């Protein structure tokens, strides 16, 4: 497929090298190297404005890097012959504000991409929607409109919608930040289930307890760079940098 860089392409499903991203004159990401292996669950933590979400959004082309390379599943996103739509089929993304399509039912939200992109027959797509909704605990909401759902239910539908494309990687951009506290648990439960199935996942999160529990690795970003990364034990119990210690003291 697309031009791969070095010999790490097979090893890493996500390989980011020297990533820079500026908005106008402001540099938000100031040189990030970031790799993820298949099956890893990586949580990105850090203070607001550290560039966490921007880094995540660079991984599926919602943001275009100012410089540096982003290789996902062997596709160099910056290469001219890369079809970004094809790459996105392999990456599921879940947003803070769900971004469900209000003009469609829950089932139609989930069936849209499989039927349009994968040309899946309608009945097959509906069966898939049914199965995924059962998986996220919302089987009875299949014909509901998004407007009638609570925030937590919306987010679980959004996860089911992303899973319907059978992605290799799932990205979660502050998936629980907009939820009422009592809704957070249901969503985290679904994500935990995915982790147990071995899904490669990258999560930007403020749920430190959850990050400690599900992560195989935690990445702490600060001021547009990766300040420190390691196992949950290393990051939460033995933080090295002063900035990480200060951050943890505020959020824990």
């Amino acid at each position, binding site marked *: 497929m697309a031009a791969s860089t070095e010999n790490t392409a097979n090893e890493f499903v996500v390989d980011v090298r020297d990533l820079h991203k500026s908005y106008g004159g402001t540099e938000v990401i100031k040189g990030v190297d970031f790799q993820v292996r298949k099956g890893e669950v990586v949580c990105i933590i850090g203070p607001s404005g550290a560039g966490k979400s921007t880094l995540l959004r660079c991984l599926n082309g919602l943001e275009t890097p100012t410089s540096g390379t982003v290789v996902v599943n062997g596709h160099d996103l910056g290469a001219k012959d890369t079809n970004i739509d094809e790459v996105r089929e392999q990456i599921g993304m879940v947003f803070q504000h*769900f971004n469900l399509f209000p003009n469609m039912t829950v089932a139609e939200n989930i069936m849209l991409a499989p039927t349009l992109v994968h040309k899946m027959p309608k009945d097959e797509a509906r069966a898939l929607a049914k199965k995924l909704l059962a998986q996220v605990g919302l089987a009875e909401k299949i014909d509901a409109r998004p407007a009638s759902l609570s925030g937590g239910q919306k987010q679980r539908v959004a996860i089911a919608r992303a899973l319907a494309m059978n992605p290799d990687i799932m990205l979660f951009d502050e998936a629980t930040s907009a939820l009422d506290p009592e809704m957070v648990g249901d969503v985290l439960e679904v994500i935990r289930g995915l982790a147990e199935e071995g899904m490669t996942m990258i999560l930007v999160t403020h749920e430190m307890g959850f990050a400690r529990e599900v992560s195989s690795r935690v990445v702490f970003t600060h001021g547009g760079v990766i300040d420190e990364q390691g196992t949950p034990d290393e990051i939460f119990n033995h933080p090295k940098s002063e900035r990480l210690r200060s951050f943890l003291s505020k959020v824990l």
Partner: protein
Amino acid sequence: MRTARSDSGLKAGMRAWLRLLTALLAAVMVVAGLSATPALAADGTEAGDTTKNMSTVDDATRALAKKAKGKTYTIATDTTFAPFEFRENGKMVGIDMDLVDKIAASQGFKVTIQSLGFNAALQALSSNQADAVIAGMSITDERKQVYDFSDPYFQSGVQMAIANSDDSVKGYADLKGKTVTAKTGSEGEAYAKSIAKKYGFTIKSVDQSATMYEMVKAGNAAAVFDDYPVLAYGISQNNGLKTVTPKVPRGYYGFAVNKGRDAELLAAFNVGLKELKDSGEYDKILVRYLGANASTNADTNSVKTVERVSFWQLAVQSLPALMQGLKNTMIITALSFIVALLLGLGFGLMRVGRNKALAWISRAYVAVFRGTPVLVWAFFFYFGVPQLVGHAIPNWIWFSGLFTLSLNSGAYLTEIIRGAIQSVDPGQAEGARSLGLTYAQTMRRVILPQAVKIGTPAVINQLVILLKDSSLLLTIGFADLLYQAQQLYAANFRVTETLLMVGVIYFVAITLLTWLANIADRRLNK
């Protein structure tokens, strides 16, 4: 009188068709025309048929006239210039129309009448789309350079009229210290000015005949100075005015062909006209439109007036014509709206898309059509394009109307649709693109359905504006609702009542349309 009107399109005629064959005849016309121009009589002289002894018909003319037999001629005329041409129950009638009909019958040729408007009729003649023009047109030296005129068939004049109920004014002397009205730039105004000082009145000029009459009836002006035949016809239609002074004779009206062309038609007209005058048929026509004493007597004080019908009778009489107008209004609105929606959608998508060149084209389109008046485009399409392509185009008035309205409305719809698309949450596009949908799929399945919902009220509003704007097309002679109304009150002088009917019809149509559109909105966007 029509000398004040501009004659666009004369140049085309000047280039063409100077032929030796009819040079002699043309010369005769010029001499006749010149000698017929009367001197201005300050205090009025006797009127009536002063064209009686102006016939140039001789044996040569009669011989030439025979060549017209069996042929069919296209004769262009004005849309409404009562009593010379106007619509009565949908049919063109009037002094000009009756003369042409009778002459054609007696001389054995056929006629197709094209009711185009005065300037358009002259243009049609100049570009040889019509063979002749008869439109209450004064014979002038300027026009004689490009047209060959028939013998004069009518002598016009200026006359003063006062309100029917006014017994204080018996002559010009009674106007001292009062205000009179006249049409801006008309001969009536010129005549009023020429005697204003002598009789000590002031003149307030306005643009429309109907306004002048209303001013006099309302007492805002003591008298009106207007074209004699127009006044006489109005009085015969019971427009609430009367005359107390004789008419002041002015220019002569003639039937025109292009210079050097259709000499046999001109000859046939002259022969036919002479026959009508000799037989008394001509007088009958004048009496029909100008009242009992019009043809032979100077004063029209005692003209017989028709019965003034009630409002409901007027409504019943007007309804067929108004409904025809409403139908045309609705058809042009519907067609224009469909095209405008397509334009708006196309340019709206170009505007929000990533292609900079296309976005720029869309901006330019909106800037041009939002930044220029509808009338400019109506004139451009209707008068300009046929001249650019060099020939007439069938049904061009419909296309002109369609292009004008849809391009204008399309510019507004472009902005409405752009705004609606941009007001859809950007997260929607991100959600769809993240799933692997292409830009086009995202637009079609996710963004546009939501944009339609957001934009529908503004689009309905634009539809209503479009329907009302369609009345501007009457300026190019498009027979819409308001145009039909103008035709009606030009003939019956019931201005206020006719406009009231039109207002009610527009209101009902727009209310129904809005109601239907809102139902459709609720169905589609629930």
